[in-house]
């Protein structure tokens, strides 16, 4: 049955492609079997909508008159510091940046009301944002101060470039201590008060292509309501972890670096986010199409929540101390049931990743493809796989002796 991406694209152009979501394909395979489903289906769409700290955007501000060299100076967008150590009027704003005068965790837990992710959301929403620059002045860039409103529509380029998104599986966070802790996995109540997880499970992009057989560098994707591309493997990409017999990683594994034109995006899919006591971030919507090139690939996309397992980790002690201990494994089927058992105790579960929004993304992408508005791409280079020999290195500290 082997199909090629070119053949699938031809069907998309003719409006004949059969596209289903990674949720719908489960029932289809149960009803028709793998062989028949693989013959019938051309594309399976995935989706995820989660806080993703490894996100940020590059902006080219345009040149003021007289010129100012923002590069090497200081720049603030709505009081949030942007990185200026690049070209004269390019800046980078990271999702976790916070204003210099943010109270942080001085009174714990700090609220972290506004940061880089919120500024990116406001820009995408076409709202004006205040730019303040202090520069040192040069012969060719004499100006030293700049204060102005900017709007995304007036910028030359606004590019979302996220170095790590779409984690292939993730920890389930609990708290074994006797006081509430505030983490990037949310508020964790004492004595196993709750268990928080963060993955779309059966809809999540990389869980549907566990060995990166179709998703690679250059893959065209849904990125925050616009069209983006996989730029590279994400930081901490770590394919060689414990996997289930079906191939699905049982630990955090692969990640993606993604890029796209911020001007096309929509604030519904790029939401400034505050993690109480932890910091600011941004919630990003990503959808990736998986071309059904073989029965094997279809079988991967039919994975269901009950077959995907995640490790339960104590965020009071084990995580901060980097101890490898886990408290067990649990399936997304159980997690989504609302309660799991940890150390013999029944624990309520909560998600940080929005499943309804992941469904919405997979459906939007499906519609784009059915309407012929979105064609698939052949990856330029595959992502490093299990055989690449990547090891996830901790930081080895070497004392600096004076």
């Amino acid at each position: 049955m082997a199909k090629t991406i070119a053949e699938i694209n031809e069907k998309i152009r003719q409006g004949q492609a059969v596209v289903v979501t990674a949720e719908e394909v489960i029932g289809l395979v149960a009803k028709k079997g793998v062989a028949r489903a693989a013959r019938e289906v051309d594309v399976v769409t995935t989706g995820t909508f989660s806080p993703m700290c490894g996100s940020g955007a590059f902006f080219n501000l345009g040149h003021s008159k007289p010129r100012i060299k923002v590069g090497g100076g200081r720049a603030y967008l709505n009081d949030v510091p942007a990185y200026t150590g690049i070209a004269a009027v390019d800046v980078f704003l990271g999702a976790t940046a916070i204003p210099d005068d943010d109270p942080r965790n001085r009174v714990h837990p700090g609220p972290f009301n506004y940061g880089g992710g919120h500024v990116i959301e406001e820009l995408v929403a076409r709202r004006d944002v205040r730019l303040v620059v202090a520069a040192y002045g040069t012969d060719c860039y004499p100006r030293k101060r700049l204060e102005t409103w900017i709007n995304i529509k007036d910028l030359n380029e606004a590019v979302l470039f996220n170095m790590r998104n779409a984690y292939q599986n993730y920890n389930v966070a609990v708290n074994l201590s006797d006081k509430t802790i505030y983490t990037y996995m949310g508020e964790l109540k004492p004595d196993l008060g709750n268990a928080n997880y963060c993955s779309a499970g059966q809809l999540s992009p990389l869980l549907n292509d566990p060995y990166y057989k179709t998703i690679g560098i250059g893959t065209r994707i849904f990125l925050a309501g616009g069209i983006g591309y996989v730029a590279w493997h994400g930081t901490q990409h770590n394919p060689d972890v414990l996997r289930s017999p079906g191939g699905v990683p049982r630990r955090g594994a692969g990640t993606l670096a993604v890029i796209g034109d911020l001007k096309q995006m929509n604030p519904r899919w790029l939401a400034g986010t505050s993690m109480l006591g932890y910091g600011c971030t941004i919630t990003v919507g990503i959808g990736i199409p998986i071309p059904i090139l073989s029965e094997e690939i279809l079988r991967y996309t039919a994975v269901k929540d009950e077959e995907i397992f995640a490790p339960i980790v104590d965020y009071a002690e084990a995580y901060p101390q980097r101890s490898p201990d886990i408290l067990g494994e649990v399936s997304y089927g159980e997690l989504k049931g609302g309660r799991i058992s940890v150390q013999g105790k029944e624990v309520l579960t909560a998600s940080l990743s929005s499943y309804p929004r992941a469904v919405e993304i997979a459906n939007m992408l499906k519609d784009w493809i059915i309407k012929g508005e979105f064609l698939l791409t052949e990856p330029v280079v595959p992502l490093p796989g299990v055989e690449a020999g990547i090891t996830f290195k901790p930081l080895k500290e070497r004392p600096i002796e004076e």
Partner: protein
Amino acid sequence: MAISKRVVLHFPPRLVEQPIIYQLVKDYNLVLNILKASVTPKEEGLMVLELSGAREDYDRGIQYLQETGVRIQSLGQNVMRNDARCTHCGACVVICPTGALALDPKTRMVNFYEDRCTACELCVLPCPPRAMEVHF
């Protein structure tokens, strides 16, 4: 019937220098306890009052305030969900102590049952996109 209620009064600048509160005491027989006041000439004034008196006098007093152009809010505080910001992630369902925020297992959407909400505000800061808002 005697009643006692807490209200927030917003005075537009033109009314700040009028003896409105004096009238309230004199003409409507209301006893008032000023909980908070910030009134500067020519700027909008704000006053939080506890008003006590007969129901009839209270109602007439409120009507008088409205007629002068004072904006009145009751202090019965409310927590509401901004549906445009809620992503239905579900982070709040283990935080809300009353079940006012609860997951619909079928749609996986988080429903907000206002009638079960006690306005305890526990969900406000932990909500990642800050969709739960306190209204006065």
